């Protein structure tokens, strides 16, 4: 035990607020969403306002009767309307000059599917709030059904593997590219394994949201739905970035740049072997996934290298 090594991790410097949540809340053991949710107000501060929807976060973001699970003001809205509800709040706070960071906090099902229209609309109107989509690649709250963020081949309860079924037959929506094409004021991908990177991006997001639309796409593997051992979840997050499954980048005004450079990406089998949602995939299925990861990465790289 050497005194000199006992230095605080830099991540703590990004926190301006203590944990705003109750100690015991209803998220599964090992769920990174809990980590993400607790981190957001720590960086953004008490004046943030959550806009939540039915989702894995709903049992915690929304209270029960008069009781609450956290100290942040919130609006619990319908799944279709998270971006538009955030619009209503943000416009009124701006108008009345109330210092607030409005955060639409919702899953990939809302962002890529049922709430996609309102998200796209808010981005087009350049509304000043943060839209944070935590991506667990499916509808996990309702029991692991496929969403359009679900990867090809993934076994879900609505794309089961059976005599004929081979998991989800089509590739996921390339959501971050779609959002990049909206040219938001700021957007970024984030991953709880890279906490300093995430915290830095939240800080940027807070500032950028004073001027325009912010989209954050945060990786949030579901230990239950993906069938991951609880203790491996952060490992899975890290591997996702190291295999280019989930590259970490940001874009200010539509100009993308990597925030974590992966010098020699690992094969995606390093990632898929950590969970059982792809365990039925044979070599060809995995090769197809690898091809998609490579394609998407090279498209991103092309944009990073060419949009100046």
């Amino acid at each position: 035990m050497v005194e000199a090594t006992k230095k605080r991790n830099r991540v703590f410097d990004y926190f301006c607020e203590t944990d705003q949540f109750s100690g015991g809340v209803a998220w599964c053991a090992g769920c990174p969403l809990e980590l993400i949710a607790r981190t957001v107000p720590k960086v953004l501060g008490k004046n943030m306002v959550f806009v939540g929807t039915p989702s894995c976060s709903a049992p915690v973001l929304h209270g029960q009767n008069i009781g609450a699970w956290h100290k942040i003001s919130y609006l619990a809205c319908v799944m279709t309307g998270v971006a538009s509800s955030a619009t209503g709040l943000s416009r009124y706070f701006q108008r009345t000059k109330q210092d607030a960071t409005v955060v639409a906090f919702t899953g990939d099902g809302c962002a890529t599917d049922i709430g996609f229209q309102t998200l796209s609309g808010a981005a087009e109107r350049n509304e000043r709030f943060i839209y944070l989509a935590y991506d667990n690649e499916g509808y996990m709250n309702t029991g692991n059904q496929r969403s359009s963020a679900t990867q090809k081949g993934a076994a879900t309860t609505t794309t089961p593997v059976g005599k004929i079924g081979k998991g989800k037959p089509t590739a996921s929506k390339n959501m971050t590219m779609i959002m990049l094409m909206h040219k938001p004021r700021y957007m970024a991908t984030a991953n709880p394994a890279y906490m300093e990177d995430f915290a830095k991006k939240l800080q940027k997001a807070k500032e950028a949201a004073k001027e325009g639309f912010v989209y954050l796409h945060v990786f949030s593997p579901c230990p239950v739905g993906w069938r991951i051992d609880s203790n491996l979840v952060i490992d899975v997050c890290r591997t996702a970035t190291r295999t280019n499954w989930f590259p970490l980048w940001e874009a200010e005004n539509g100009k993308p740049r990597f925030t974590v450079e992966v010098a020699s990406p690992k094969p995606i089998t390093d990632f898929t072997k950590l969970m059982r949602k792809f365990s039925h995939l044979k070599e060809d299925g995995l090769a197809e996934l690898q091809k998609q990861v490579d394609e998407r990465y090279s498209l991103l790289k092309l944009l990073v290298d060419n949009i100046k």
Partner: protein
Amino acid sequence: MQAKKGKVSVMMGNVVAANVARLCRPEVVACYPITPQSEVAETISGFVADGSLDAEIVEVEGENSAMNVVLAASAAGARTFTATSSYGLVYMYDAILQASGFRVPVVMVNVNRETPGIHSVSSGQQDMISTRDAGWVQIIVENNQEIADQLIMCYKLAEDFDIQLPVMMNYDGYYLSYLNEEVEIPEQSDVDAFLAPLKNQPQRPRIIPGASTGCGTHGMEMGYVEARYKHWTAMDRAKQKVDDIDKEFGEYFGRSYGGQIEEYRMKDADIAILASGSAAGTAKTVVDTKREEGIKVGLVKLRLFRPFPEERLIKALKGKKAVGVIDRSICFGWKYGPMCMELKAIAPAIGSMPILSYIDGLANLDITVPHIGRVVDEVSAAAKGKAYQAVTWIPME
């Protein structure tokens, strides 16, 4: 008190709605255009563009977003305005339920139009009927002047601390939305003064950054029951409040409409017609003509549809010999029209009398003078003990 005077000009129904909405000074406005409502969205956008309305205007990408924008802004404390019709109304249905559950005082204009299933760009009250159990106050008006006056009253009702309910003001598409009629638009200062007492009420809860309060909490067991019970009692209170505000408005501006219902030549009437919206205007002319013919008929104009003006209707109709109800919509699952069904629910209290149901005016087919005349004749005959048809689809005859 001298009634406050405004400026009289010829104005289209939709433009009236937008003009008066402006006078009520909404802070956040979100409208998605749809025929026959579009001029409301256009005109109010124009006001913001020319600086005559200081409001946040959100050019939403759909009605669902329009309702979500206004309900959220309202939950933060804003006065809001939106307008829609038909497909738009049903496209915002989840948010409509949300708004009433949150008890936010959103005011919405709904320009009545037929609903999906059968494509029809035409007038009809089916849209409003399809949201009758959404927990909103629903008011139906008859002409452009009533659009103007009632819209002001809607804010007074919605934001009343004892009420705190979203209010939907309905008027017939085409018949009123595009009707150019002379309208007296009140002065801004008078509207301000009329609505000013709302500011002196206790503050309703609102989302304040850093305040640790949340709108839309899960209602667990008795919490759910309590919230629903409070909503239900507020709906009940709204009935008297509609009458009170109408009276107050009458004293202030010199025009009033009877509150929950308008009774036209009902006092000495033997038989009654129940109608709503623009058709009630036509019905009044028919009542006049039939009175000249010696038939003692009166009209009850249903202004408040939700909550249903049970007590007022009982008072107005008790002791009459027969009543004919003209519906501009259909009640699937029951053979009578929706308003007729509602009236039948209070039939024991108004006494046993023939209640004749008429379906008319669907899809821009006029509820004409001869149609209503026929209704009066049949109701009159039924009152004298003649056999009658329980339901009549007038255009199908």
